[in-house]
C-alpha cells in the first residue's frame, strides 16, 4: 500500500514541494528556537531565563504557523490528487487503506524535511544566541548547545503536525461517493478564532492598559487569531465581492499575511513612538528584533502557501483553460480573465487582513498611548499591500502562462 503511495508521490513530486518546503522551514525554525532551551541548560540563571522566554514566546508562534502551513499545504496536495484517490477507491481500496497511504506519505515528507532541517536549525540557533548576546540578554560566556530538546521539537512537531493533517485530510477523501464540504465546522472555527481575537483585544485595552510593552503579548495574539478567523471565512468574503468560492483557498494566505504583518509592524511602530525618550527595559530591543523576525518568518511561510495555492488552483484548471482555448479563446483572453480573478483575490485578502490587524493596533494604541488610531504613516501598509499584490500576480500569471503555452489541443 505504502509502495503505491510512494510511487504516486514520485510520479508527481511537485505537489509535495510546498509541503516539504514549509515543513523544512518550520522544522529549522523550531529547532533553532528549541536549541536555546538546550543552551539554557548550561547557562547561568539570568541567561537561562532570557533564553527560556525567547524560546517559548517566539517558538510558540512558530509552532502555530508551522502547523497551519503544513496542514494547508498537505491538504492541498492531497485534494489535488482527489481524482486519483477516487480511482483507487473504485479499484477496491478501503477507507482505512487510503488513510494509511495519505498519512504514510505525509510522514515520509515530514521525516525527510526534518532531517534536512537539522544543519539549518543548528546554524540559525547559533545566530539567535549571538543576537541575544549582542543585546546583553545572555552572558558572553554561555556556549551554544544543540541537543535533545531541539531535535525533539523539530522532529516531534513536524511529525505530529503531518500525522494530524494526514488524518484530517484523509477523512474527507476516503468517504465513498459524494464529496462533502462542511461549511458549518469551518464557520464555527472562524467564530471561535474571532471570539478569541475579540477577547485578547478587550484584555489588551483593559487589563493591560498602562502595562507598557507587556501589552504586546495579548495585542499580538489578538491580531493573529483575528487573521486566522477571517482567513477561514474567505469563501463568504469572496461572495460579498461577488465572485465564486473557487478562489477562497488563495484568499486565506493573503489575509493571514496582510493581517499579521500589518498588525505587528504597526504595533512595533506605536511602541517605538511611545518609548522615544524613555528609559526602556533591556528586553525591549529583543522584542523589537523578535517582532521583525516573526514578521519576516510569516512572510516567508505565507509566500510559500500563497504561491503553492495559486499554482495548484491554476494547474487544476488546466483542463478548463484548454477547453476555453479549444472553444476559440485567445491566450490573451484567458490571461485577462485570470488576472481579473487574481486582482479580486488580492483585494479581498488585503481588506480582510487590514480588518484583522485592527484587533492588534486599536487596543494596543489605546493601552500604550491612550490614542486609538496610530499616528504612524501609511508607508509600511503600502509596502505590505505591494508585497501581497506582487506575490499573487507573479504566481498566478506565471503559472497560467505556462499552462496555456503552445497549441490549444491538450491530451487529458
Amino acid at each position: 500500500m505504502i509502495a503505491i503511495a510512494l510511487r504516486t508521490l514520485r510520479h508527481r513530486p511537485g505537489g509535495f514541494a510546498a509541503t516539504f518546503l514549509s515543513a523544512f522551514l518550520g522544522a529549522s525554525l523550531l529547532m533553532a528556537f528549541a536549541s536555546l532551551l538546550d543552551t539554557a541548560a548550561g547557562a547561568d540563571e539570568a541567561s537561562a531565563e532570557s533564553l527560556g522566554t525567547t524560546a517559548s514566546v517566539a517558538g510558540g508562534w512558530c509552532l502555530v504557523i508551522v502547523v497551519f502551513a503544513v496542514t494547508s499545504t498537505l491538504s492541498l496536495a492531497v485534494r489535488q490528487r482527489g481524482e486519483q484517490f477516487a480511482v483507487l477507491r473504485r479499484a477496491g481500496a478501503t477507507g482505512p487503506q487510503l488513510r494509511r497511504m495519505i498519512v504514510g506519505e505525509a510522514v515520509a515528507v515530514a521525516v525527510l524535511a526534518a532531517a534536512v532541517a537539522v544543519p539549518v536549525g543548528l546554524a540559525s540557533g547559533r545566530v539567535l544566541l549571538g543576537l541575544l548576546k549582542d543585546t546583553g540578554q545572555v552572558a558572553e560566556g554561555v556556549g551554544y548547545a544543540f541537543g535533545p530538546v531541539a531535535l525533539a521539537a523539530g522532529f516531534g512537531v513536524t511529525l505530529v503536525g503531518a500525522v494530524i493533517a494526514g488524518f484530517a485530510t484523509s477523512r474527507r477523501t476516503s468517504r465513498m461517493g459524494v464529496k462533502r464540504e462542511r461549511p458549518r465546522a469551518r464557520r464555527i472555527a472562524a467564530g471561535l478564532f474571532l471570539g478569541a481575537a475579540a477577547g485578547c483585544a478587550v484584555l489588551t485595552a483593559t487589563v493591560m492598559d498602562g502595562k507598557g510593552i507587556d501589552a504586546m503579548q495579548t495585542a499580538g495574539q489578538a491580531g493573529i487569531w483575528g487573521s486566522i478567523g477571517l482567513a477561514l471565512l474567505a469563501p463568504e468574503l469572496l461572495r460579498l465581492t461577488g465572485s465564486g468560492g473557487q478562489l477562497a483557498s488563495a484568499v486565506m494566505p493573503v489575509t493571514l499575511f496582510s493581517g499579521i504583518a500589518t498588525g505587528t509592524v504597526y504595533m512595533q511602530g506605536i511602541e517605538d513612538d511611545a518609548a522615544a525618550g524613555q528609559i526602556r527595559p533591556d528586553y525591549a530591543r529583543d522584542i523589537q528584533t523578535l517582532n521583525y523576525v516573526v514578521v519576516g518568518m510569516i512572510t516567508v511561510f505565507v509566500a510559500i502557501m500563497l504561491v503553492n495555492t495559486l499554482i495548484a488552483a491554476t494547474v487544476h484548471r488546466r483542463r478548463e483553460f484548454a477547453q476555453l482555448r479549444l472553444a476559440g479563446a485567445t491566450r490573451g483572453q484567458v490571461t485577462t480573465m485570470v488576472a481579473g480573478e487574481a486582482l479580486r483575490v488580492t483585494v479581498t485578502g488585503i481588506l480582510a487582513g487590514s480588518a484583522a490587524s485592527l484587533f492588534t493596533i486599536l487596543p494596543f494604541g489605546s493601552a500604550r498611548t491612550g490614542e486609538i488610531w496610530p499616528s504612524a504613516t501609511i508607508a509600511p501598509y503600502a509596502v505590505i499591500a505591494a508585497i501581497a499584490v506582487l506575490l499573487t500576480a507573479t504566481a498566478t500569471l506565471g503559472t497560467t502562462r505556462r499552462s496555456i503555452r503552445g497549441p490549444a489541443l491538450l491530451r487529458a
Partner: protein
Amino acid sequence: MTDAVRVESLYRTYDAGTPVTALDGVSAAFAAGTFTAVMGPSGSGKSTLLQCAAGLDRPSAGRVFLGGVELTATGDTAMTKFRRERAGFVFQDYNLLSALTVEQNVVLPLRLAGRRPDRGRVRAVLGTLGLTERAGELPERLSGGQRQRVAVARALVGEPAVIFADEPTGALDLRSAREVLALLRTAVRDFGRTVIMVTHDPMAAAYADTVLFLADGRLAGQLSAPTPEAVAAHLTELVAA
C-alpha cells in the same frame, strides 16, 4: 441455487440542484453462470444500476445481494472488501491510475486485497488483450482503445465470480471488440462466471444469454437468446415509445 447478483426495488436519486431519479424501482436477478446485457437509451440509468449492483455506489433505497450477501446492509469498508473479492468492474471511463504502469494498474485490485498476483495469469490476460508490449507503459501514452483493454484486463485478472462491464467495447475497433466479447463469453461458458454488461451495440448484446432493457430508470422488457436484429427492433420500439 442462489443468484450471483440480485437487486430488489432499487431507487437512486441524485440531488444536484434539481433532483434526478436515475433508478426508479428496479428489481432483477442474475443467475450464476449467465451472461446478461443491459441496454437502453443514454441516461436511462444503466451505469447507475451496474454501480449499485457492484457495491460501488449506494442506492437511495432497495437491497443489493452479491453472492447471497446483502451488500446494502454492510458498512463501506466491509462492502469494499467483499466487492473486491467477488467482483471485477470495467468502467465506462476506464479509471486507470496515471502514476502506475499498465501491468501495475491491472494487478492493483489484487494488491489492494493483499493477494499476490499470479505472474503467469497476468501475462496470459495481457497477451490475450494484445497488451504484452505495453505492460510497462503509463496510461497517458496509450490510445483510448488500449486503455479500455487495460480496464478489461484488470477486471478479469483476479478471476472474480461476477464481472460487471460498462460499455467494455465502446472504444474498440471491430476486431478487438469481438475478442473482448469472446473473452467474456468464455469466462461464462468455460469458467462458470457471471457477466453483466452494459452496451449500446446490438451485435455485442447478441453475445449474451439475456438482454435487459432499461428506460427512464425502469425495466422495459427482456429478450432471451437475442439476435442483433431482435435487439435492434426492441431498441427502436423503446425510443419510439
